[in-house]
């Protein structure tokens, strides 16, 4: 039973994390653009 449980946990982790990785990577690029817009620009020298 325990072996079966850990097998399921392992498969779930791989599949779910791979999907999350793709979503977060794509969404994160957009967030970085917003971050720089939000932070005040450095003063001109």
């Amino acid at each position, binding site marked *: 039973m*325990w072996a079966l449980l850990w097998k399921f946990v392992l498969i779930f982790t791989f599949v779910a994390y791979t999907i999350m990785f793709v*979503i*977060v990577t794509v969404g*994160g690029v*957009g*967030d970085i653009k*917003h*971050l720089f817009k939000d932070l005040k620009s450095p003063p001109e020298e």
Partner: protein
Amino acid sequence: MELFSTNFGTIDWIIVCVYICIPLLIGLYLRKYISSSGDFIVAGRNLRLFLAVATLTGTELGLVTIMYSAEAGFINGFSAFHIGVIEGAAVLAIGLTGFIVYKLRESKVMTIPEYYEKRYNQKVRVVGGIVLALGGILNMGLFLQAGARFMMGVTGVGNPAMLKIFMTIMLVMVLIYTVAGGMVSLAINDFLQYIVLSLGLLVGSIFVIREIGWSTLFTIPENAEAAFTFNPVSEQSGFGLLYVIFMVMVSLAAGALWQTATMRALAAKSPKVAKNLYACASLSFLMRKVIPMLWGVGAFLFLATKAPQLLEQFQSGGYSTQYGMPVFISKIIPSGLLGFIAAGMFAAFMSTHDSYLLSWSSVITQDIISPLRGGLADTTRLRINRITIVVIGLFLLIWGLWFEAPVSLWNYMAVTGTIYLSGAFTVIVCGLYWKKASSTGAMIALISGLFAIAGLGPWTKTGIWYLSDKFIGVSTFILCAAGMIIGSLAFPDIAVKKEVQ
């Protein structure tokens, strides 16, 4: 088979060196965006959900996490998976309910001790800050050592004298860009490191499974004896029921209140983003334990079947069990890809170190020095932050060189974490959800947390149940809760007295 023979070659060194330069350049470039301590510590509170998830993962998935998880898999087999499952479930529960984090983000504090002052008084903040910094800095005391051991194992450098050199070089790299960029630099670097690290772990796992075989992975080798088992509740696994209870307590408290993770919640755009961040990141918390543990299990099986004489040396204490996973992957992953994975791991080392250094320096500056000196100008605060980072870094170097933990790396982390978490969890939960919580009760709870230090003593090895680290850990949580309740009821705050009257 030689323990330190490796596939790591010149091309891998080049990949690692090139990769190391990227965060340094980003840190230096982003320096001009830092104009206040708020920008430095919480990026002006501008982190949106996806970036927050990536940076939280980047921070909490450190090389030390990979090392202690792999070591647990190497020593305890699949039964170690329960630690990851409990942690993932605890973080998911926090994310779904908003338990603690929603209200904390609403309070607009920058650090947890700042909340202590808002809810209780300044003395609680200073004492809480000292306990937090003590527990936190001790907790990261072995990060450098574990990181250097990984790099030595992967690159095949077996000379023990090289450990000092590896540790020093790695520390200097981290210090340069943490001092330069603060949270803005962390956010961008952590995002890059999140990508490299996630890919490295996923691809590396394919090699581990291919090497061992999916069905072989779940069989118990003949020479594994009772230590290699699947059932964490069984004492033979090296854990037992009390340990599982300890893990539930630590995971719930750490999930909500570990300063480095909570900083991400406090830096989130809104309380709702903070809550969602935890729900999304629960998968990262599961993954950060389960995948390295798989690598550790793989390392054990690899040695058990292909080099039993080497495995005996590990089991007799000839080599630190921390070397198990790195020497394993250095043998099964081909050159080129190995450099990529080593770079990802080094990135993990950097991203964790920078966040931890930033967290503890912020606590020392904001919650100890500033209140004691009656406030500080923003520029002074920023300068002290940076000086503190360097001082903590030097302490880590000295501690990592001279201290060898009497327990496994993960148990060392859990025990040192409990010093702070046991008190903080009680004080914050009661502060947020119990009107009668008083400053005296909070002081007693915070100081009671120091009892956890007993879990690092040599007596934990005697085999006597009430002297074990897990019993001391669970007792500390109970002691803090009892101290908080009794102290609050016996010595209520004046404002509460009036309200009650």
